[in-house]
């Protein structure tokens, strides 16, 4: 969580200086979800993060170097400079390619779960998306298909109360997004998305269900977007200051630090050590990304189709 937070803050600085060329969709305030969920998984499970699940990439093993290089549009970044880091895939890290169309990853994640079920593998497919994505037809189509087929999938809603600029009260007339799961024949669970241990516990239950062949779970994690929709927008413009204040008090990092202190696990300057290691990793990545080359223009024509020899061999 500290690494993700430091990453987001540093990336925002670099964006302000024009070094980060990707429009940032900050995850500050939502770090506990990606962390809690991914710690509930095995390395051979797969995930598709949302545009705001930065923590998931880092927990699953995508290096800060590669991720940041992608945001700078460098050849060492996502898809060798051809894709945004926000939706990058990584075969090694078990991260499937996402989509910039919110919600479109939901059927794709169901399809990965379908592959696991067909091959009788006890792997799980996880899809992260925001509250706004639950209004897409793909949410309905994907969850319905997963429910009917009892697929080993967990659908994680990062309910940060805003769909871009629109508050949830203006895009959802119901009282609970998790309750929608009932219509698809599987459980919907609401959890405090700023409590990393609560997320982990809820995720562990959902994963156990999926591995046991009992089908999907819809996990609604209540959280708050501490920044604007993207780096181009003022952080909390147009929102009730009391709302912002109350959520900042429930910042997931503050909560977890308090919990660790309560359990007596922060002795020996542990936090300072973590902070120092995080800072070192981030600054190393900044140097790496800045020094990395831009893509060769010829890169544009690669990976549109399989190399010709592959196609021929396949026939």
């Amino acid at each position, binding site marked *: 969580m500290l690494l993700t937070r430091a990453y987001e803050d540093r990336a925002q600085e670099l964006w302000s200086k024009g070094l980060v060329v990707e429009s940032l969709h900050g995850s500050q305030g939502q770090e506990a979800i990606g962390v809690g969920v991914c710690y509930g998984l095995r390395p051979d499970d797969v995930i598709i993060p949302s545009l705001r699940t930065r923590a998931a990439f880092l927990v699953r093993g995508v290096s800060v170097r590669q991720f940041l290089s992608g945001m700078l549009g460098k050849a060492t970044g996502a898809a060798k400079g051809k894709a945004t880091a926000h939706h990058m895939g990584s075969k090694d890290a078990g991260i499937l390619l996402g989509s910039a169309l919110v919600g479109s990853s939901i059927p794709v994640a*169901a*399809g990965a779960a379908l592959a696991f079920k067909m091959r009788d593998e006890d792997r799980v497919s996880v899809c992260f998306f925001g509250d706004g994505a639950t209004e897409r037809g793909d949410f309905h189509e994907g969850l319905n298909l997963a429910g009917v087929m009892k697929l080993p999938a967990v659908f994680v809603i990062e309910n940060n109360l805003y769909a871009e600029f629109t508050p949830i009260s203006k895009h959802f007339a119901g009282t609970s997004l998790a309750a929608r799961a009932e219509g698809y024949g599987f459980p919907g669970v609401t959890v405090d998305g700023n409590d990393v241990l609560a997320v982990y516990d809820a995720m562990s239950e959902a994963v156990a269900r999926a591995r046991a062949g009992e089908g999907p779970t819809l996990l609604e994690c209540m959280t708050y977007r501490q920044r604007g929709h993207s780096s181009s927008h003022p952080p909390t413009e147009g929102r009730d200051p009391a709302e912002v204040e109350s959520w900042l008090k429930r910042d997931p990092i503050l909560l977890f630090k308090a919990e660790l202190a309560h359990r007596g696990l922060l002795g020996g300057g542990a936090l300072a050590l973590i902070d120092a290691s995080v800072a070192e990793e981030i600054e190393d990545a900044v140097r790496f990304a800045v020094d990395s080359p831009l893509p060769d223009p010829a890169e544009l024509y690669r990976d549109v189709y399989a190399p010709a020899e592959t196609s021929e061999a396949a026939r």
Partner: protein
Amino acid sequence: MTTIAYREAVQRALREEMRRDPAVFLFGEDVAEAGGVFKATKGLLEEFGPTRVFDTPISESAIVGAAVGAAMMGMRPVVEVMFADFTTIAMDAIVNSAAKARFLSGGEFSAPMVVRMSYGAGARWGAQHTQSVEAWLMNVPGLTIVMPSTPYDVVGLLKSAIRSPDPVVVLENKQLYGKKEDVPDEEFFVPIGKAAVRRPGQDVTIVATGYMVDRALSAADALAAGGHSAEVIDARSVLPLDVETIVGSVTRTGRLVVVHEAPVFGGFGAEVAAAVGAQAFGYLAAPIERLGGAWSPIPFGQVLIDEYLPSEQDIVQAAQRAISA
């Protein structure tokens, strides 16, 4: 040799590939129990069981989207979009997820999958069950699109499509499902990206797709009766397009007629005409003729359908205009 219908050719290709590769599987609306609305997948559930052949909810976006996820996880899904018109619902999954999977992952992932769909006017299916959608999809890098017009090509192209490392859209013409032909009993393939010269000729080149190939061949018979020799080329694959075969033909005949079912404006014929204009301009003895569906939604009643589609007579007249120019 065995005589099989176009719909049986679909079954044969799927059966052969599913026997060969356990990763190949089939799903879509009513493809299993019902054997498909055109019976093109009949018998597959019985042979391969409900794990590999299954029905889905009416959810074209989830059908194609799930195929992308399964393909990225090493499967070789074949999905059916029952009527090509329903592509509109699955367009995001086809264009933004399937076609871009390899590029956006720098080659780490790919989506080797087949999207079969029935297309074409002629019978009374109405405006939302008959469209030819190839032009909607031809502008999408990463996609491959084939339009078989014979049972032989259905077998050969569908098998090549299933083995392709990238997503392939197979457009099956619903007017042709009952069309029969002798095909070899031994395994064969039709390479993607190669047109077929269905009838050699010297006076005019007619390039056609799908059901329009049959009409072009009938038109060629009529032209022959009038002393003109037409070369009929079945494009077979519209993306990639076999420009070499088409341009080679036009350099000999000096005249080109292109025929397809979709409307002329922005259609497949425009791309063929542009390729010929760019590469064989000096050989052209007459303006290029393009024939396609009328600039209207596809109508329901037979009189209007007959008015909508290019007829054999339309093709004959276009060829005669080119020859006499």
